[in-house]
């Protein structure tokens, strides 16, 4: 296997990402941010960056457990809240989603997990309206590319500082900004059901797939070149197919064009238009 170095300069990344959060929140006339803090490393990093960018008094961290959530998730989220000094609220989503599950029996664990992820999204956006803040996203580049996310659930956000960092790079930055080791080093999990692990579901580790994604996406290697670089053919094929199949999760809904000027195609403005 060729040496593939995903090291980033963490001072530079931190400077750009805190500048991004500060500018994008304040340019729309706001000063606050809201985010879910799950106890995992992704949301921990978002929380640290937001606290640094906006001041901890302007960040509301939400702990949103379900009755089966791991107690470690709540504990680790509290570690982040205590260390950053951000505002926080804990809202149990069990009374929101259990009636839903009761009304629609026979849901499998994935559907139930998606409902939980979307109940959390509803809560973030409600709280963002309550405090007049923007929702900060937490998804990393690895899971965005792999489509390992609930559409309109954990993928929903106004701005996302983490989205161009592979998971292994995100861990590097998390360590540098001071996220506790126990959070950086723990096994990644969406914690939507007992015993769920991200790498178990995906079938490979982030260490492995990040290097492959880096060659495929950042370096524009062909599948053949990735195999020549030392990756197994089956692994390369599976990852390429996964990236293609879940591209819809990265896109806004398709609009059917009828007129001469249509949103998405030829009505082209940045979101930051006029600010």
């Amino acid at each position, binding site marked *: 296997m060729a040496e593939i*170095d995903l090291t980033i300069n963490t001072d530079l*990344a931190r400077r*750009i990402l805190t500048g991004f959060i500060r500018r994008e929140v304040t340019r729309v006339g706001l000063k606050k941010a809201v985010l879910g803090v799950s106890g995992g490393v992704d949301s921990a990093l978002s929380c640290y960056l937001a606290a640094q960018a906006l001041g901890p008094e302007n960040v509301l961290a939400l702990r949103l457990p379900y009755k089966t959530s791991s107690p470690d998730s709540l504990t680790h989220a509290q570690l982040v809240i205590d260390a950053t000094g951000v505002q926080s609220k804990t809202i149990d989503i069990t009374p929101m989603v259990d009636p839903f599950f009761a009304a629609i029996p026979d849901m499998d664990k994935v559907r139930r997990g998606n409902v939980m992820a979307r109940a959390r999204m509803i809560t973030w956006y409600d709280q963002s309206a309550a405090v007049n803040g923007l929702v900060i996203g937490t998804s990393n580049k690895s899971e965005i590319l792999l489509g390992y996310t609930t559409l309109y659930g954990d993928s929903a956000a106004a701005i996302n500082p983490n989205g161009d960092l592979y998971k292994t790079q995100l861990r590097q930055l998390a360590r540098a900004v001071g996220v506790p080791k126990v959070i950086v080093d723990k096994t990644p999990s969406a914690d939507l059901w007992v015993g769920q692990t991200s790498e178990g579901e995906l079938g490979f580790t982030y260490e492995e797939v990040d290097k492959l994604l880096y060659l495929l996406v950042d370096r524009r290697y062909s599948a053949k070149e990735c195999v020549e670089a030392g990756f197994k053919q089956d692994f390369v094929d599976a990852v390429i197919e996964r990236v293609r199949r879940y591209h819809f999760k990265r896109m806004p809904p398709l609009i059917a064009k009828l007129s001469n000027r249509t949103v998405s195609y030829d009505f082209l403005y*940045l979101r930051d238009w006029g600010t």
Partner: protein
Amino acid sequence: MKLNLALVQIDTRLGVLNTNLEKHLDYIQQAKGADLIVFPELSLTGYVLQDLVPTVVARPNGDDPTFKPLLQASKKVDLIVGFTEEDARHRFFNSAAYLSKGEVVYVHRKVYLPTYGMFDEGRFWAWGDSIRAFDTRFGRVGLLICEDFWHASPPYLLWLDGAEIFYMISASPGRGISGDTALESARWVEHVNQAYASLFTSFVAQTNRVGFEDGLNFWGGATAYDPNGEEIAKGPYHEEALTLAELDLNELHRTRTRLPVLRDERTALVERELARILREGRTGSNGRD
């Protein structure tokens, strides 16, 4: 002779001319003692304009509401500003103007519009079609906009046309993070500008936007190099700043005595070989005029 430059790296409001003009006038007030203030590419409008292009046009003359106060300010200090120009046939150009003593001395229309990867300039702008050096009260100079100096030919032509100072202005989105302390895009721009200063034994001064447009960051990092390729000044990354650079124009005399590459440049040979290469169709370029 000394030339005092103020290299200004600003953030802008996307598509809001008035606010950006105010910021220019504020920096002009701050840059006391400067002979020339250099603002970045599209400094009056912001960069990723897309469908905003036709709505943020300015015409470089004294009747234009944006240029009128800038021309007034140029009575005290020379200015380079970036703007969206609309010509009489309603073509839109990514342009930069050199203003001095209340007059428009020169307007450069961006010749290379990047239309690949994250860039889509060719969709919204018309291609400029000339590369000329021009005379200022501080000597003959050249003015290029961002992608213009990612190509080697525009600086080369300006050199042969008599430019002793190259002003390079950009709105360069930061990209390419690694273990290095600077982004790959920043290192690239610094390398080539330092190389141009060395190769052409000329002064090169560069300024670049800061701030964010959606998820794009602009990295700032204004620089000035002397005809030996030595760094004279460097602005900070990722923050607004006014960086002063004193150019000792006598250095041209000293450097070119030591290293007479301009004197020895064989332009007729270049012309002959270039004509042959084009005739034989070997360039690999799409041959756009």
